[in-house]
């Protein structure tokens, strides 16, 4: 068991810069999830920790040991690949035992470890099968098993659930979480799925085009996104954004159509210094309410309603049909007709403001 430190880690392929300086400490036993859209450099980052890619600049340490120059095998890590990377010609048992045989553990010890892992992962009955005789979920478990038996100090996961169907993904997600808690092994987990990230990680590192947007606990990211990118990426359905500006007193924002919307104390105080400046207003669909006419701060013209059972998603336009798009999430079943105009209230405590240029929270 060990902590992992990334210090100003950069990666370029020739002239193409892929990772632009990542700094991060993963505590001993912590579950850190790296999340970001496809192609942002998540796998590259993980593979640098694994030793499968060279580190262009900066330093990676596992425990106290700088591992930049070490081979993957010397880093005391185990990795679960997106396609599982099981050896197709070996039985489940041999897949799990492969690394142990190379380390010249005794036959008894190998058997003990493999059987223990198989027990944890409910693979006991499958040890003689070949990978092609297993279902996707079972293969996934074998890949996990192969990582566990090595008793590494760090687990690395590269989108391990993305090849599974939705139901199995949820189930395996819970299993991975439980397993990580039980074993207490420092884990670095890469995914593009923000729900996976939110549910699994102790902390999340949001990556966009090789730049760290924010590092923090899931709820922190949800409640106080540091940038517009994080705000839009975390949470489903995505946050609503509105290009607008502050009023001259800095305590209100101007809505399309000329109405103004009061900000709560904290947000107003932070902006008091720069009245009249343009801002991007962000508000999550779940922080909009349909209220009686007298309390409404704006109106939503309904375009489409999605019924999810527990919730209803109402898609529409702010003001009239030409206004900006806006989604409202209401609890329970609601079925307003298309074209209907609903009185809308934004919860002031949940309004986020971002700089339109830099995207940074103001």
């Amino acid at each position, binding site marked *: 068991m060990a902590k992992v430190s990334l210090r100003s880690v950069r990666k370029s392929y020739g002239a193409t810069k892929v990772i632009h300086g990542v700094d991060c400490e993963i505590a001993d036993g912590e579950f850190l999830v790296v999340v970001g859209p496809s192609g942002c450099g998540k796998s590259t980052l993980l593979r640098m920790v*694994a*030793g*499968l890619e060279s580190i262009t600049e900066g330093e990676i340490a596992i425990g106290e040991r700088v591992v930049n120059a070490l*081979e*993957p*095998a010397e880093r005391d*890590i*185990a*990795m679960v*690949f*997106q*396609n599982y*990377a099981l*050896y*197709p*010609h070996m039985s489940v048992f041999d897949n799990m035992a*492969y*690394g142990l045989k*190379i*380390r010249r553990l005794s036959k008894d010890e190998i058997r003990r470890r493999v059987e223990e892992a198989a027990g944890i992962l409910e693979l006991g009955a499958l040890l003689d099968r*070949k990978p*092609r005789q297993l279902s996707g979920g079972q293969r996934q478990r074998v890949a996990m098993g*192969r990582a566990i038996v*090595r008793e590494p100090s760090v687990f690395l996961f590269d989108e391990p659930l993305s090849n599974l169907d939705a139901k199995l993904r949820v189930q395996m997600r819970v299993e991975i979480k439980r397993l990580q808690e039980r074993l207490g092994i420092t884990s670095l987990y890469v995914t593009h799925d923000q729900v996976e990230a939110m549910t699994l990680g102790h902390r999340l590192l949001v990556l966009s085009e090789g730049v760290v947007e924010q590092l923090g606990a899931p709820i922190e990211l949800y409640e106080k996104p540091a940038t517009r990118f994080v705000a839009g990426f975390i949470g489903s359905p995505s946050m609503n954004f509105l290009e607008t500006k502050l009023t001259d007193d800095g305590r209100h924002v101007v809505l399309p159509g000329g109405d103004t919307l009061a900000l709560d104390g904290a947000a107003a105080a932070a902006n008091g210094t720069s009245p009249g400046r343009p801002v991007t207003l962000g508000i999550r669909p779940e922080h909009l309410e349909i209220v009686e006419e007298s309390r409404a701060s704006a109106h939503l013209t309904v375009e489409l309603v999605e019924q999810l059972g527990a919730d209803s998603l109402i898609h529409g336009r702010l003001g009239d049909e030409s206004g900006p798009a806006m989604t409202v999430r209401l609890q329970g079943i609601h079925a307003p007709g298309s074209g209907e105009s609903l009185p809308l209230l934004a919860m002031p405590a949940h309004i986020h403001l971002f700089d339109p240029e830099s995207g940074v929270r103001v």
Partner: protein
Amino acid sequence: MEKRVVFKHPVLPYLLLAPQIVITLVFFIWPAMQAMKQSLMVEDAFGLSSEFVWFDNFVVLFEDPLYLESLWITAVFSVSVAALALSGALYLAVQADRVINGALVYRTLLIWPYAIAPAVAGVLWLLLFNPTLGVLPYLMRGIGLDWNHHVNGDQAMALVVIAAAWKQLPYNFLFFLAGMQAIPRSLIEAAAIDGAGPMRRFWTVVFPLLTPTTFFLLVINVVYAFFDTFGIIHAVTSGGPAGATNILVYKVFNDGFIGLDLGGSAAQSVVLMGIVITLTVIQFRYIERKVHY
């Protein structure tokens, strides 16, 4: 594993197959039937009449020490050619798989020998190894090795094996390279993380995954060594010296067209055909049972 294309039209598949079937019938089945008929006959000295003699030609054949020797020579030759062509190609494929810059150039160059006619390939090696003019014997004399494949049967055998293997190498190389590139990188990476070094990764992961390719190539190479090496033998040694490189297919030609023993030669052809058919059947059976992992 099996992929099937289903044709809706009932006649189309037969139409598509027709050219191949016609070619097979005219150039393979019909001559094979002729050979079988011929193998049961004896011609008179002037080729004017022939007599039906049942299996006499075969009896004579298997009592002939020269034939038995040729059988042994063929075995040595085929095994050597297949072994050399397969291992050489595998080695080159491993190297080519690692190359990142200029991979296409290497690959293209490595494929060229396959496009060369057997006889030309033979002449090439003949000149390289020519005891008086060749570059290689000159160099070998430098290290005290006396090369003369016109006299030394083992050297003659080595020469035709090298020439034949060299010509088959590109074919094997292409298949090995394709096979290797079909192995997901993550498998190799997983093995690296599991602590396996390059050699161990090759022997425990890559090579086992290449077994289907290897078995397929083994069949192809043995058949190649049995039949397609005629041109090389003819150009390089003509079966000599003293029959040291007289492989079965060359002996068929020699006895039939030079020695004019048509019946005996036809019997040899039939035996040859039998051997290759058996080999192929055994190997494909084995492949079907064993090599699907």
